[in-house]
Structure formats: structure tokens, C-alpha cells
């Protein structure tokens, strides 16, 4: 292809030498490379979390089992919690946001790429530190290491310090990525990409980034206090010396509750992209969905004391937390309503992303409806700290991060690799996972609600009516893990062997489908003018319009105004 005469031509003497692939990835500040590092890292840690979950479930398969020692069980529990939250759920969500949002807004990169790069590798460093804990002693302080169990007096080894360093570095990394995303979404939108035209998933990215800018520093402060308490004779959380153990609970629950909301906002944001495209209809009401996502971030995080109903906290605060938790029914209900209304009357193509999206909606609704029970103060006094709450949390977060994350993975995989994930294996994986989550966690609902089986315990006693529930739950956990592994295998196989996907694999309406698959390092050569919230549909209509005019017989053509 030669340049038209009269235009300046850029001459270069070859391309810079090609570096090795891992050097390329390790030094890249491109949001797509970093997004893939985040997503791949998240799935790697998901695998580790599953191993830990299965070991714990094996221990709890029969009463008074001695498969794991109490200390080993507590270590598995603590590592599982930290891995699932800090090393899987948040980086997975951020990975997709970081990869997709700049493409969706028509940016050629991010605003502060080196900050995002630092953030990504801080997350990897955090994960490495948490697991290098195996070289000395991992933490055994629990999913949320409550003061004063986490203090130097009760756990004098290095485990809690490693936990604090790991989660602290990862959280710092997430905050840095969030800063980059906020700056990118504010400053680098394509011409015409007004906020009101921003795709829902990019809105979710903006909301989650702002949320992380609020809750991330809160957790960093708490972790810093913990490190000071443990290593420099601090008294922040020492109840007898003027500090307060409840301070840790408040600060950490703000973060954990915010994270819970972040995962669900991510999942619903992705689902709100998938559902309209695969129903070939616009989202029923964009404004309502986006407003609801923002409301969830604010109201949901304000409900942090929902986790502290049994603590010595005034009843007024508990009612405040309950009001906030119950108020979440409105935004979540509105989103579910709009998703269902979008599907209604649509031309629904039941492809893998929509299958996983439907599974995510079902699982999230079961989890959230159970949380409605738990947030009723008096019911919380009975059900919290039982396996009923384990089941509720897992339905909502496995529904959000795993089902929702897999929906996002199947959806954007063609964009990332240029290939579609195998549909057959995806279906097998989905139905196995759906069976698995029901068999694994419904019995725990019953064990907690009927018999009051407590959480986090390394064993349960026979003749308490929970033997069968726990055995079934263990089997279900293995089924769930098998289903999850199928999708991971599917993703690995499809990277090279999947059916080639076009640049617009699904007929999506947002700008990422305008880029090549996989996108060029600079994302776009040219950008269309954005004139609505569905820029690609505008282009398709313009093309259809033009070709229809070209096909029309001469003489019939109308003058174009």
C-alpha cells in the first residue's frame, strides 16, 4: 500500500528489536498487558484458594475428623480468606476494568500507566509474600484477623505480620490502579463520549475505583496500626491500655463490606453489557442501572456494622446498619428488574457468557436474599457466626466473582485473544458449577439455620444433627471446584485452539469491539465520533443505510438532505 502522493511519509529503519515475551510483559505499562497479569494472577490464586477450601471441606467431611490439625486448619482458613478477597476477587474485577474500560471509552492508553504498573506488581508482590509465609509460619488468625487474637501476645510468630504486609501491599496496589482508572475515565474519553454515554461496565469501573479510593486507605490505616501494635508496642487495638479492639472491627469491616459491594458491582456491570448485546436490545433503562450501582457502593459500604451485631455496640448503630443493608433491596432489585426487562421481548442468544450471567444473577439473588435475613438485627443474633452466613457470603461472592467473573471472561476473551472460548466445555463447566454451588452451600444454610453449626471451626461434633449436611457440602465443594477448573482449562486451551473470533465477536455496542482482536498496543488507529451510548450500532446503521442506498436502482434515489 503506497501513501497518496503529496502526503508526508514517515520512514523508519526497521522495528526495535523484539524482546523476550516475559521481559515484555514484566516491563509493560500497557493497560492490556497489566489487565491480563491481574486476571491471570487472580485465576492462579483462585486455584490455590480452591485447594485450601477443599482441604478444609475434607477436614469437615466427618465429625471430629483428625485429617488436619487445628493449627493447620486455622492457617488454611486464614490463607483462604486472604486469597479469595485480596488475591482473587478484587484483582479479577480490577483486571477486567483495567483491560476493558480504556477500550470502552476510546482511550489509547491509561492516564497514569506507570502507576497502574506499580499497582499490578504490588498485588503480585503481596501474593508472593502471603505464600512465602509457608517458609516460616502462615497466619492463623482467621479470615478477618480480629484484635486481639492478631496481637503479638496471642500469635507471636511472623504469620500475622506476613498477612499484614501482603494484604497491605496488595491493597496499596489496588488503590494505585484505582487512581489510574479514575484519571483515565475522567480525562481520556474519546470525543463525544460524555458520561451519559459511557458504557455501564465503564461506569462500574469508575464507581468501583472511587469506592476503592475510600475503603482502600481505611484498610491500609488499619493494617498499619496492626503492624505498629505488633512490632512497635502500639496500643491501637489493646483494650486494657486505652485502645479498642472494636476499632479494628470497624475499620476492617468497612473494607470487607465495601469489597463485597465492589465484587457485585463488577459482576452486575459486566452482566449489564452481556445481556443487552445477546438479547439484541438496549439496556431497559441505563440511568436506573448506573444510579443503582452507585447507590450500592454508598449504601452497601455504610452497612459495615451489619457484621458487628453481637459486639458491644449500641442498638441504634445496629438499626442504622440494618436500615442500610435492607435499603440495598431497592438498587439490587431495580438492577435485576432492568436486566430481566431487557431480556423480555429480545432475540436471546443463549451463548456461554449469558449462561454464566444468568447463573451469577441466580446465585447473587440467593446470597443477597439470605443477607436480608442476616441483616435483620434479631435474626443476625441467631444466624451470624453460623454456617448459614458462610453459605450466604459464598452464594453472593462466588456468584459475583466466579460466575460473574467467568461471564466476563467468556465475553471479553475474544477481544483479548482473538479467539472464542470453547462453547461445549463452557456449558459442561457451567452446569457442573451450578450443581456444585447448590450442593456445597445449601446444606450449610440448613446446618447453620437449623442446628447452629458455628463458622471457622476445625471440627464439628457428632450427634449434633449436622453430619449429613457436612458430608454433602464436602462433595458439593469438589463438584464446584471441578466445574471451575473446567473453565480454567477451557481458557488455557482456547488461547491457541479456540475458534477465531472476529473483531466484533458478539455484535456488541460499545467501542472495545471497534478495536482489533487482540487490540493494537495503541488500541485504535482512528475513532468514530461518539453520538450515543451505542456507538457501534450507529456505525452498523450508517453502513446499512449507505449500502441500501447504493443498491437502489438509479432514478429512484432520493436526494439526501
Amino acid at each position, binding site marked *: 500500500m503506497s501513501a497518496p502522493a503529496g502526503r508526508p511519509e514517515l520512514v523508519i529503519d526497521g522495528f526495535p528489536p523484539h524482546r523476550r515475551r516475559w521481559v515484555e510483559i514484566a516491563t509493560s505499562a500497557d493497560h492490556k498487558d497489566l489487565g491480563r497479569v491481574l486476571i491471570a494472577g487472580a485465576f492462579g490464586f483462585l486455584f490455590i484458594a480452591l485447594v485450601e477450601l477443599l482441604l478444609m471441606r475434607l477436614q469437615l467431611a466427618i465429625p471430629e475428623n483428625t485429617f488436619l490439625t487445628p493449627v493447620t486448619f486455622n492457617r488454611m482458613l486464614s490463607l483462604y480468606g486472604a486469597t479469595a478477597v485480596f488475591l482473587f476477587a478484587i484483582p479479577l474485577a480490577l483486571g477486567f476494568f483495567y483491560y476493558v474500560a480504556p477500550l470502552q471509552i476510546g482511550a489509547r492508553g491509561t492516564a497514569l500507566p506507570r502507576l497502574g504498573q506499580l499497582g499490578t506488581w504490588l498485588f503480585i508482590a503481596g501474593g508472593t509474600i502471603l505464600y512465602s509465609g509457608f517458609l516460616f509460619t502462615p497466619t492463623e488468625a482467621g479470615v478477618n484477623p480480629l484484635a486481639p487474637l492478631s496481637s503479638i501476645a*496471642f500469635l507471636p510468630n511472623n504469620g500475622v505480620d506476613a498477612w499484614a504486609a501482603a494484604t497491605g501491599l496488595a491493597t496499596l496496589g489496588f488503590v494505585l490502579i484505582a487512581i489510574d482508572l479514575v484519571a483515565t475515565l475522567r480525562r481520556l474519553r474519546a470525543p463525544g463520549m460524555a458520561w451519559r454515554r459511557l458504557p455501564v461496565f465503564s461506569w462500574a469501573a469508575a464507581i468501583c475505583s472511587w469506592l476503592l479510593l475510600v475503603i482502600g486507605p481505611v484498610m491500609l490505616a488499619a493494617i498499619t496500626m496492626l503492624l505498629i501494635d505488633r512490632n512497635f508496642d502500639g496500643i491501637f487495638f489493646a483494650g486494657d491500655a486505652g485502645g479498642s479492639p472494636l476499632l479494628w472491627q470497624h475499620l476492617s469491616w468497612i473494607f470487607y463490606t465495601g469489597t463485597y459491594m465492589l465484587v457485585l458491582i463488577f459482576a452486575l456491570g459486566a452482566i449489564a453489557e452481556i445481556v443487552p448485546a445477546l438479547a439484541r436490545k438496549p439496556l431497559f433503562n441505563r440511568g436506573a442501572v448506573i444510579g443503582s450501582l452507585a447507590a450500592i457502593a454508598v449504601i452497601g459500604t455504610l452497612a459495615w456494622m451489619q457484621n458487628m451485631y453481637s459486639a458491644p455496640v449500641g442498638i441504634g448503630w445496629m438499626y442504622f446498619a440494618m436500615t442500610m443493608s435492607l435499603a440495598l433491596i431497592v438498587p439490587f432489585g431495580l438492577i435485576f428488574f432492568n436486566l430481566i426487562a431487557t431480556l423480555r421481548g*429480545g432475540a436471546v442468544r443463549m451463548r456461554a457468557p449469558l449462561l454464566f450471567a444468568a447463573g451469577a444473577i441466580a446465585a447473587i439473588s440467593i446470597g443477597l436474599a439470605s443477607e436480608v435475613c442476616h441483616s435483620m438485627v434479631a435474626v443476625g443474633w441467631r444466624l451470624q457466626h453460623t454456617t448459614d452466613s458462610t453459605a450466604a457470603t459464598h452464594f453472593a461472592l462466588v456468584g459475583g466473582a466466579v460466575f460473574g467473573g467467568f461471564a466476563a471472561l467468556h465475553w471479553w476473551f475474544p477481544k483479548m485473544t482473538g479467539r472464542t472460548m470453547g462453547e461445549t466445555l463452557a456449558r459442561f463447566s457451567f452446569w457442573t458449577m451450578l450443581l456444585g454451588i447448590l450442593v456445597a452451600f445449601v446444606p450449610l444454610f440448613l446446618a447453620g439455620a437449623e442446628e447452629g453449626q458455628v463458622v471457622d471451626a476445625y471440627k464439628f461434633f457428632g450427634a449434633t444433627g449436622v453430619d449429613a449436611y457436612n458430608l454433602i457440602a464436602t462433595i458439593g465443594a469438589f463438584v464446584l471446584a471441578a466445574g471451575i477448573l473446567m473453565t480454567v482449562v477451557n481458557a488455557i486451551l482456547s488461547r491457541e485452539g479456540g475458534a477465531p473470533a472476529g473483531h466484533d465477536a458478539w455484535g456488541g455496542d460499545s467501542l472495545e469491539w471497534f478495536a482489533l482482536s487482540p487490540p493494537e498496543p495503541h488500541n485504535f488507529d482512528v475513532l468514530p465520533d461518539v453520538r450515543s451510548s451505542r456507538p457501534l450500532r450507529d456505525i452498523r446503521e450508517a453502513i446499512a443505510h449507505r449500502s441500501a442506498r447504493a443498491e437502489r436502482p438509479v432514478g429512484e434515489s432520493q436526494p439526501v438532505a
Partner: protein
Amino acid sequence: MAPHSPGTDQIDTLLWIGFVAAAILIVAVIGGLLYVLRRYHAERGAEPRQVTGGRGIQLRVSAALGAFTAVILVLSIVYTDKARETPATGAAGLQVSHSEPLKIATTGQQWLWRYDYPNDAFSYYKLVVPVDTAVELDLVTTDVVHTWDVPDLAPERDAVPGKTNHVVFSADEEGTYFGQASTLSGQAYAAMRTEVEVVSPEEYEAFIENQKKDIQAAQDRVVGLLENGETP
């Protein structure tokens, strides 16, 4: 499990209200989803109508959801307030003093509960209380956070360092009720159980006397050993 205290009766009622509310929400979402997914399939070449919803329907749906939420919220507050009330001691119960519940200092420690009764008696692991009597446990801890959780009798409550938390209940039937600490407190956490034995006021008095005698005997023995220059 079955409620055996006025407070847990209220909790049980609210629990069923919660189950019903949750069931309504789950059926509405999953039912609606399954319906549209089964009903609307892609037809070749068909382009669905590009329908969007206006503000009116969003407001109506929000109002319906808000009304549902308000009902649950009000019911929750009503039943929670009832569950918090200090029960009155009945005619069959131990008559301690005017309207004051029987106060028992309860101490969590890794991994055992200690109960200090009035009149200097104490017991470990097993709490003995008279039937039909208002009991208040004042929860403290000597080490980490422990949750006192006997679901048949009372709402769960944390013992947190530096604070005193309170549990009130009045058992309506004699018998033994089991509980298990429900906040991770270290290695032997799962073994940190407790047992509440509800007995008649006479048996309770006898138990207290017996405990006091046993404690005094043990102390005398230690004092005797010390006086003889031996290590106990």
C-alpha cells in the same frame, strides 16, 4: 433447635418472617429470569423492538421495592425490641430481689467459660440457672474475643477486652442446652463449648451450696498443703 426463652421466641418469629421475605425475593428474581430466558429466543433475521423503559416504571418498581423494604424494616425493629426486653421472673422462678435479674459474671478465656454466681460460687464449662428466672450474664474476657452463643436461650453476644457485654434470658423449661463459642479464638476454638443446665430454684440453691462447699474444701486442702511446706 427450639426457642426456650421469651427473647428467642421473638427471634424465631422474626426468623420465619425473614425466610418468607428471602423466599419472595429469590422466587421473584429467578422466576422472572427463567421465564424470559425460556420465552424469548433469537429468531433468524428477526430484529427485536428497541424498547427502553421510561422513568415512570422505574419509579413504580422502586416504590414497590421500597415499600417491601419498609415493611421488613419495621417488623425487624418491632421484634428486635421485643427480643431485647429483660424478661420478668415468673412465679416458679428464683425470687432474687425486686425486678432485678439474677446476675452471673461470665468470663471467656482460651478456651473455656467461667461463671461466677452471686455468693462466691463459681463453675467452669457448665452454667446452672434456675428455671423461669430472669438471668443476666455480664460477659467479659481475659484474652481474645469470644462469642457466647447458646441459640435456644439467648442471642449471641461477644465478650470483648475492655468492655462488658450483656446477655439476658429466662429459660422456660428445665433441661440442658448446648452452646458453642462462635468467634475464632485460636487453636482449640472448636472445642470451646458450654452447657446450660436449667433446674428448679431449689436445685439451684443446692448446687450453689455444693459448689461453695467443694471450693472451700479445695482451698482448705491447698492452704493445708502450703502450711505443711508442700507445693500444691
